[in-house]
């Protein structure tokens, strides 16, 4: 610690800290453009000049380390003159187009020009003009306004790790851009909108929609990533106009992923439903809540009375709030059915009784960046959980060994120490080899049955190399991703991961799925466990069984099961065959029309109060920022009324907080223990697949109903990439297929014609087909053999 004096007052500061960090921490204003606490120092804009004792010239506060006894003046005549002069230079080429600039009112340049600049310009010469770039559907550019602070350039180098933006040319001719116009392909790209101090980079969807001073800011929690990023929604006249990050060092730092930033566009999608709908005598009619709910209750009672309670099941999206999920399972159980689930993307439930309380990350989010060795099993992490990936990226840049086992050679934006590409059919074999490689070292313990199973397994050289890497480093973790949880041998994968964790002494964690997956587990939206993980006597059907075996009555919450589930084709067929389906849905689609009898319009993210529990088990509650459109209502309120109409006890809640507290008391201090939560598998045999293996990934912008309707996100590279059949170029040429042409794809008796996409990431014995796409719905299961031929 050193003592310095700023503007005549003494301050304590960390030795080596930059002056600007000290002034920021103490609420002293220093103007700046290039400095950003999460980026490297450029010290190029010179706006932060201050006077320092004994220094002949003013010094940049952002790049001047403090020293004991240093005396600094931030508002002295010399400092002010320097700041004024820099401001004058910055404004030479900056257009005076504030009245038509989206940044107006929240522009750092505007604010600082008022605070530190002159009131008249002496500059009469012409200003430079820079042509705009098209950098994709999310970011609007107006490059004439750029002041070359290079924050966006450093962001793309240092945070996204994909250097996409750069400063070309020099001096007055410097231009920020991607040189040749390319879509910015980062899943975090929207953050440059916040970083850009001027109106050069602004939000394209928000463009010209409102002025900063017309907006009201409301705190809430983001609706997609499993971290529960903290965000502010900006609203005007009851409409969400944009979403920006709210700083929370423990969760999202200062960033948010594009999915959480731009999905609000789905709130106003054209197919948004604004009044309850019922289907009577084969005709759809809009109705009021009273009639719709009475009709729904009647229909559900009827199914249960005639077919028995086991003929009824409820399914929910893990993006629903904790309160909604809790009430839904309460309704389901009240009707006498244990057919309840939210795990639509899973197919192997054989070890569900042994699963942890919820799929826990195994450590706090922020700790990930301090790891030394991390084994990621089955995850396209950059796209699944962009900000968890960012934590691992930080670890990797610090020198951590990241090891990846994946069916597809996904791109990571940091060095990966070992990559093992293993097709779905050999996945278990490779993990077993790895476990064996770890076990071969003496002095470690595995349960005897597991030892027996591993007895015949032999470890290959690459397994041994990975095992070796997994043993080194102080803080280590094994993490399971979505490609692992969706695997038909998930239970075996989990067991092997647990064995590996045990043998190597690492922690075991899950990378999470949706924003409230943990909450769905805690709320008891499960067939085998009640709220707070309470084990049950009678176990109901899991999501996959419910949707493939077929039930008579369904209650769906926030779902499009044909897109959300592991076998969309079968799900749709089952729903169509059912007698009575009630869909709680914010949207009305022809597909829902085709199977439902009642559609109840629900409130979405930002329209309801509630709670999400994130992947580290953190409960985050929020209130509604806007009221839902038309007659749409928060689902917890609808469920409360429905509970009463069904004559069920315990539905007298006055607020969502009451619901939450009821569950909170049951959960108490319970925490998951991942390392103990697994089951010894009966065998380690791999799956036989005929023909090419299908690999399925849920793409980043298809994960739930809201994001599927976010029109700008749907125009990104990531969204457009999700179509067609992805095949390795070599395999394609063997099969006479070429980019852009169509291929005939056969799976389980269904045949479709899909465009061919050459994709070198896909291994030769497989094809990659994305989930959540209407175009390939009929192919069904996310796994299995497919035949591909030229169409």
């Amino acid at each position, binding site marked *: 610690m050193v003592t310095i004096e700023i503007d005549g007052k003494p301050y304590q500061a960390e030795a080596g800290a930059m002056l600007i960090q000290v002034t920021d921490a103490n609420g002293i204003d220093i103007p700046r453009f290039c400095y950003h606490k999460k980026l490297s120092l450029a010290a190029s804009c010179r706006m932060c000049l201050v006077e320092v004792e004994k220094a002949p010239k003013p010094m940049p506060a952002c790049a001047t380390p403090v020293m004991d006894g240093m005396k600094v003046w931030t508002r002295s005549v010399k400092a002010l003159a320097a700041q004024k002069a820099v401001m004058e230079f910055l404004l030479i080429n900056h257009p005076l187009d504030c009245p038509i600039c989206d940044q107006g009112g929240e522009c750092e340049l505007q604010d600082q020009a008022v605070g530190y600049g002159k009131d008249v310009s002496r500059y009469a010469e012409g200003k430079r003009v820079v042509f705009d770039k098209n950098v994709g559907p999310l970011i609007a550019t107006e490059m004439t306004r750029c002041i070359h602070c290079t924050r966006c350039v450093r962001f793309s180098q240092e945070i996204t790790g994909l*250097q*996409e933006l750069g400063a*070309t040319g020099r001096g007055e001719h410097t231009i920020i851009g991607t040189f040749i116009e390319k879509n910015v392909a980062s899943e975090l790209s929207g953050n440059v909108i916040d970083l850009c101090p001027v109106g050069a980079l602004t939000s394209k969807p928000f463009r010209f929609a409102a002025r900063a001073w017309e907006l009201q800011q409301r705190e809430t929690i983001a609706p997609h990533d499993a971290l529960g990023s903290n965000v502010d929604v900006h609203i005007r006249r009851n409409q969400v106009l944009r979403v920006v990050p709210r700083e929370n060092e423990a969760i999202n730092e200062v960033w948010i992923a594009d999915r959480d930033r731009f999905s609000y566009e789905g709130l106003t999608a054209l197919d948004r439903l604004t009044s309850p709908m019922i289907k009577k005598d084969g005709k759809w009619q809009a109705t009021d809540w009273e009639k719709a709910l009475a009709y729904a209750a009647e229909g559900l009672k009827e199914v249960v009375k005639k077919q028995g309670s086991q003929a009824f099941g409820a399914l929910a999206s893990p993006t629903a709030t904790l309160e909604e999920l809790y009430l839904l399972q309460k309704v389901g159980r009240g009707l006498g059915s244990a057919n309840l689930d939210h795990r639509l993307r899973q197919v192997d439930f054989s070890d569900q009784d042994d699963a942890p309380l919820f799929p826990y990350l195994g450590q706090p989010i922020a700790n990930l960046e301090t790891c030394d060795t991390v084994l990621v099993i089955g995850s396209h992490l950059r796209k699944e959980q962009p900000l968890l990936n960012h934590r691992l990226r930080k670890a990797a840049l610090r020198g951590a060994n990241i090891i990846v086992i994946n069916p597809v050679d996904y*791109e990571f934006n940091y060095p990966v120490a070992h990559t093992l590409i293993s097709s779905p059919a050999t996945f278990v074999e490779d993990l077993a080899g790895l476990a064996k490689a770890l076990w071969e070292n003496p002095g470690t313990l595995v349960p005897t049955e597991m030892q027996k199973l591993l007895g015949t397994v032999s470890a290959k050289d690459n397994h041994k190399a990975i095992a070796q890497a997994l043993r080194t480093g102080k803080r280590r973790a094994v993490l399971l991703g979505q490609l692992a949880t969706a695997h038909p041998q998930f239970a075996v994968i989990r067991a092997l991961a647990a064995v590996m964790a045990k043998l190597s002494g690492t922690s075991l964690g899950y990378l999470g799925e949706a924003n409230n997956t943990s909450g769905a587990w805690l709320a008891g939206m499960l067939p085998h466990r009640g709220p707070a993980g309470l084990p049950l006597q009678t176990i109901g059907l899991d999501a996959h069984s419910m949707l493939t075996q077929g039930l008579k009555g369904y209650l769906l919450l926030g779902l499009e099961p044909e897109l959300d589930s592991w076998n969309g084709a079968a799900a749709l067929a089952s729903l169509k065959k059912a007698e009575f389906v009630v869909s709680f849905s914010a949207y009305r689609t022809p597909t829902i029309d085709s199977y439902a009898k009642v559609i109840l319009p629900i409130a979405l993210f930002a329209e309801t109060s509630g709670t999400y529990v994130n992947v580290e088990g953190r409960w985050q509650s929020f209130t509604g920022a806007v009221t839902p459109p038309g007659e749409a209502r928060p689902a917890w309120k609808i469920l409360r009324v429905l509970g009463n109409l069904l004559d069920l006890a315990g539905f007298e809640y006055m607020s969502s907080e009451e619901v939450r507290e009821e569950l909170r008391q049951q959960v108490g201090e319970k925490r998951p223990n991942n390392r103990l939560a697994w089951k010894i598998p009966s065998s380690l045999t791999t799956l036989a697949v005929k023909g090419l293996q299908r690999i399925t990934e849920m793409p980043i912008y298809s994960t739930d109903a809201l994001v599927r309707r976010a029109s700008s996100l749907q125009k990104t590279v990531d969204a457009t990439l999700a179509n067609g059949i992805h095949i390795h170029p070599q395999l394609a040429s063997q099969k006479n297929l070429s980019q852009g042409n169509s291929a005939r794809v056969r799976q389980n008796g269904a045949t479709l014609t899909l465009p061919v996409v050459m994709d070198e990431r896909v291994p030769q014995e497989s094809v990659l087909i994305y989930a959540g796409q209407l175009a390939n719905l009929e192919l069904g299961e996310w796994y299995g053999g497919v035949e591909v031929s030229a169409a």
Partner: protein
Amino acid sequence: MSTRMPKPNSFQLLSADSRAQIDHWIAKYPPDQKQSAVMAALMITQEANGGWLTTELMDAVADYLQMSPIAVYEVATFYSMYELKPVGKHKICVCTNLSCMLRGSEELVDHLQKKLGVDFGEITPDKKFSLKSVECLGACGGAPVVQIGKNYYENLTPAKVDEILAGLE
């Protein structure tokens, strides 16, 4: 599938000879700092391509040095010795900075533009000459200065310029 990295193996666009010359420069730096050779690599590539760089060639350099293309573009656009458009057989670079201006570079420029019938950044129809304005060439003592190819010509007058150009093939 991302848009940021150069196409794999795009370095093959560079001739074996160019690559050998670039390797000579790479060897001067620690193995993990290959990109330090970017300026030399661009120069070598430019010369092998008749004096200018295409985007594909810059991508090839990026691939060869394992850099992102934009980082190569940044270098190529920053320094005036790299050309991103075709140039004439003889690239005439006239210094228009302060000392040369005081000593008559404007007159030289007028003369050259009239004589060759081209503006800055343009090539004569026979592709023999191209004209370029550059900043201080570091030879103010001999102002006004013109650089043609690798040679400096100092203390110039329009007449001297005529003489020099007449002597060029």
